[in-house]
Each structure stands twice: as C-alpha cells, then as structure tokens.
C-alpha cells in the first residue's frame, strides 16, 4: 500500500516539476505561468519527491527503501514523460 502511495507521489512530483518548465507550460496551458505559480510547482515537486523517499524508508528500512525509491522514480518519470508525449501528439494532430 505504502509503495503504491509512494509511486503516486512520485508521479505527482514529476508532473509538478515538468509543469514548472516553460516548454510544457506552453503545451499544457497555452502560455507561461506566473513566477509564483512556477516556484510553487517546483516546491511541490521536490517536496513530493522527498515525501515519497521518507514514506518508503519508513516502511521498508534504508536498504530496501532506497532500492524501491530508485525504481519508483524511474517508473514515475517514465509515466509523466509518456503522458507529455501523448499530450503533444494530440495537440499536433488537432
């Protein structure tokens, strides 16, 4: 259960971090976001990444926790990435 929550946190985190990038703001929102919003997204993103790490280490211990974290971040980054690709493709098709 904890591991699923951690994975979801990582997906959320990478989504925030991606949205804090100008290029993706253009894609998803049609234009740049305010500086405050961007900073907020970055804080949320990094915070969620740290939160996921804490969750996993608390649940599994340092050794297994770190290994799980490494896997979670890899997969989560891939998911967000794939979603962005899909979004851009849909836009290009329109």
């Amino acid at each position, binding site marked *: 259960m904890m*591991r699923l929550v951690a994975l979801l946190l990582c997906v959320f985190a990478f989504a925030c971090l*991606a949205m804090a*990038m100008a*290029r*993706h703001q253009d894609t998803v929102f049609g234009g740049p976001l305010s500086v405050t919003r961007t900073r907020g997204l970055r804080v949320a993103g990094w915070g969620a990444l740290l939160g996921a790490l804490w969750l996993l280490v608390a649940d599994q211990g340092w*050794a*297994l926790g770190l*290994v*799980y974290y*490494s*896997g*979670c*971040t*890899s*997969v989560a*980054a*891939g998911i*967000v*990435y794939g979603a*962005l*690709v899909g979004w*851009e*493709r849909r836009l*290009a098709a329109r």
Partner: protein
Amino acid sequence: MKPTRNAKPQGRGVRQSMSDLHTWAGLLAGWLLYAMFLTGTVSYFKDEISQWMRPEIAHQRVTPDPAAVAQRVTDTLGTVAAGSSEWFMQLPTTRSNVVDSFWRTPDWQPGKRAFQDATFDPSTGAKVVARDTLGGEFFYRFHFQFYYVSPIWGRWLAGLCAMFMLVAIIRGVITHKKIFVDFFTFRWGKGQRSWLDAHNALSVFGLPFHLMITYTGLVTLMMMYMPWGAHVALTTPAQQQALDRQVSAFLPPGERAGVKAPLAPVDAMVREAQARWGRDNVASVLVTNPGDTQARVVVSRGVSARVSTSPEYLLFDGASGKLLDVKDRVGAAAQTRGVLYALHMGRFGDLPLRWLYFIVSLAGTAMVGTGLVMWTVKRRQKLPDPERPHFGFRVVERLNIASIAGLSIAMTSFLWGNRLLPASLAGRADTEIRIYFVVWLATLLYALARPARRAWIELLWLAAALLALLPVLNALTTQRPFWRSVADGDWVFAGFDLMMWALAALHAALAVRSARHRPRANAADRRRAVALRHQEDA
C-alpha cells in the same frame, strides 16, 4: 603531393571525440550487450520460466517445509552421490518448486567434469520426473557466459562488454550536460531525431539502474577479472580461504578422518536455522565429507529481505549434529561487495520489487536496442548514396536485425522447443538449446536475403506470432491451459501466458511502426539530416 597533417582533436572538441568513443564502443559491444540485457531481464523470472518449462510438476501452492525436504534429499544423495566429498542442495522457495543440487564427482580424474548435478522433487526427494530441460537457467547462464564457448572466455567477453557499457554511461552523462534541461522534451516521429530522443529518454530514466547494474555486474565476477591483489597478498591456502569465507558459504571439504559415522539428522539442523531466520528463510544445505566423523553441514540463510549475498550460515558437526559456529557478519569491504552483488541479482525483493527490476531492465534493453538502430539510421544518412549502402553497412544492418528481432524469435523458439520436443529424447536439454542457436542463425540468414526494412517488419511480425501462439501451444500440449491456471489460482502459468501476449503485442506494435516509417533520402532531407547532426553536436 603535399602530405596533409591530420586535424588536431582540439578542433573537433572534447564532446565530439566523446561522441565518437560512444559510437565505436557502443557498436562493437552493442549486439552482445543487447543479448545480455534481454536474457538478464528475463532472468529475474528464471525460476518461473523453469516452472513453466517443467509442466509435469504440479503447481506448488504452499512451499514444502525446508527441513523435511532437506532430509529427503540428503537421504537420496546418500545413494546418488555416494563417495562424493561435498554435496550442495538449494531448498525450494515460493518461486522454485524443485531442489537443484550438485556434488563433487567421486574419484575425480582430470578431464572429467568436477561436479555432477541433478534436480530433485521436494515432496519425494527423488529425481524430478519431468522433461529434461535447463529451464530458465539457460537464459541466466547465457546472460553472463554465453554458450558454446568455455565459461571462462564467455565471462571475459561479457566483462569486456560491461566495461564498454560503464564507459558509455559515464561518457553519456558527461556529454549530455544539458540532459536535465532537455529532460522532458521529445519530438515524435521525425526520423533520426526521434530515435535519438527515445534512446536518450530511456538512458536518462534508467540511469541510476543502468549504472548500478553495469558496475555490480562487473563486481559479481571481479575475482576473475582482477585477481592481482589476491595473487600478491594471499599466498597461502589459509590466506586464500580467509578471503573465500568473506564472500562465500561454499566451504571446501576438510581432511577426512577415515572413520565412518552416519550423518546426523539434517532436518534438525535446518529447524535450528528456521528458528533463527524464519520458516521459509533457509536457502541451502552444504554437506562436506558425509559419512565421516569429520563431516560438516553448512545451513545458509535465505536471501529475501536481506540486501546482501554475504555468507550467513550455521556450521554444524555432521556426525553429532552439534552447532559449531554461527557466521553472521563479514568485514566492511566484503559487506559492500555482498550488497552490490545482491543489488545485481535482485533476489532480495518481493514480487512488486522484482517487477520494478524487470520493467526498468527492459527499458535498459530498449536503450541498447534504440542505440543500435540509431547508429544505423545515422550512418545511412551520412552515406553518399543512402539507397545503395556499401557491403559493410549492409552487414551491420542485418546484424542489427538478427540481434534484436532475431533474438526475440530465438528465445521464443527455445520455449516452443520445450513444448514440442518429445520427453524421451536423449540429450533433450541440449537440443532445446541447439534450436535456440539454429533459429537465431536462421534469422540472420533471412535478414541477409531480404531488404533491410522488409526484414525488420517480417521478423517482428514472426516474433509477435510465435509469442502469441505459445499459450495456444501450451494449451494443446499440456494439461495447463490458461483458463485452468486462472481457475486454479496458478499465477505462474497464467501470468506467463499473459506475459507472452503482452510481448506479442509489443512486437506487433514495433512491426506496425516499422512499416509506417518510410526513410526519405532525397537531397533536401540529406541537407536537413546534416543540419540536425550539427545541432546535436553543438
């Protein structure tokens, strides 16, 4: 004619020469690395593959009590391996429903194999009654020592490839300084650029894993690759054994006393281990000098939930059954090695973690594969006439096809062979393996005979078909079709069938994509390709 001076490397820049290094290292090792990565990836489920390849053995709902199994197999080995100075047995786990065992050949002569092996049924202790097959072990061994070459040469070759990979990863990080900015950018479907982006994406996402898996892979065989420190420092057998005890529980047999004494009950020893570590956390039993008063029994701890392969065991007096020694720690460097080894094996985790390993490892395989394809695409655009590549290029292209699509076909054929070869065939296990290599060679010959693009499409479709039909073949040739496995709650067999269909879909998707991709080689595109190339190098 005035001799021309060669261009100094400074002009091309550090990053350019790094790019060349990556290209050359990658190509030379790429084909082997792809095979190593793919067979390594499936090896995370090698026990399940072995189960699937021995369908005669019923689905194991509950792991049999290791203590009882150990006693049964010990009794059998007393007959089967009589006269041997050392026996070893791997106890069944939730993933493995057989007891793999080996022992030193009694009265060994040089020229004979030093070890004999057999597979036992945990519920009877007798030799397993199932078709003779290497099972998932074949993919596992191929992964680090290949086949049809001596294991030593195979391991050296694998190590060399691993070094190339390590260098390529470090170089990749140095070159792509912009990678954390470029991280989430991707352009879809634009010829060479999108292959590069896919390659980069897979490389970046899996970076921690790839770096870890490559380095730890070298660590698993480091005693062979870098023996020099041991040669210099450990000159007596006692010193050598001091090192061995830090890394392995495979103790050599000591001096025999020459006095006969029956082996004390092994199940009692395993029960003591279970009391310490847990009922299902006993991995193996090693017996030295059985039947002698100097017999020793080593009961080793299981690997689950322990991120280390460092030896942890209980040492018993074989004749009296008394506990002589508890080994539960090793030195700091040895512990580091144990952790690195365990990280590579990935056996410590539960099922979700093993799936994570599998997925990220599969992505690594794709990373190597896209790298190989990208090299070909890039080189083709640099040719003076991309429609008529020179012979060397054509061979490289075909080797790509055989290494990637051909490997999928070969591995699936191995499984087809397992279902189709008659159980009574002599040397059946070797024949299964021979089928794998013959089919692989056949895919290369097929690719050489066809235009490259068609070969890709046709072979990918063939792989998809073979994968999709494997569960059908299974239903026709065994008593364990998909619906029965689901009804029985046998998720090893059911999951296997599902995986075959998923992989079939993947290959079909790749075939469809290859069919849609039409390389345009007119002058305008060549100019664009050149411009893109300069962009990348900038």
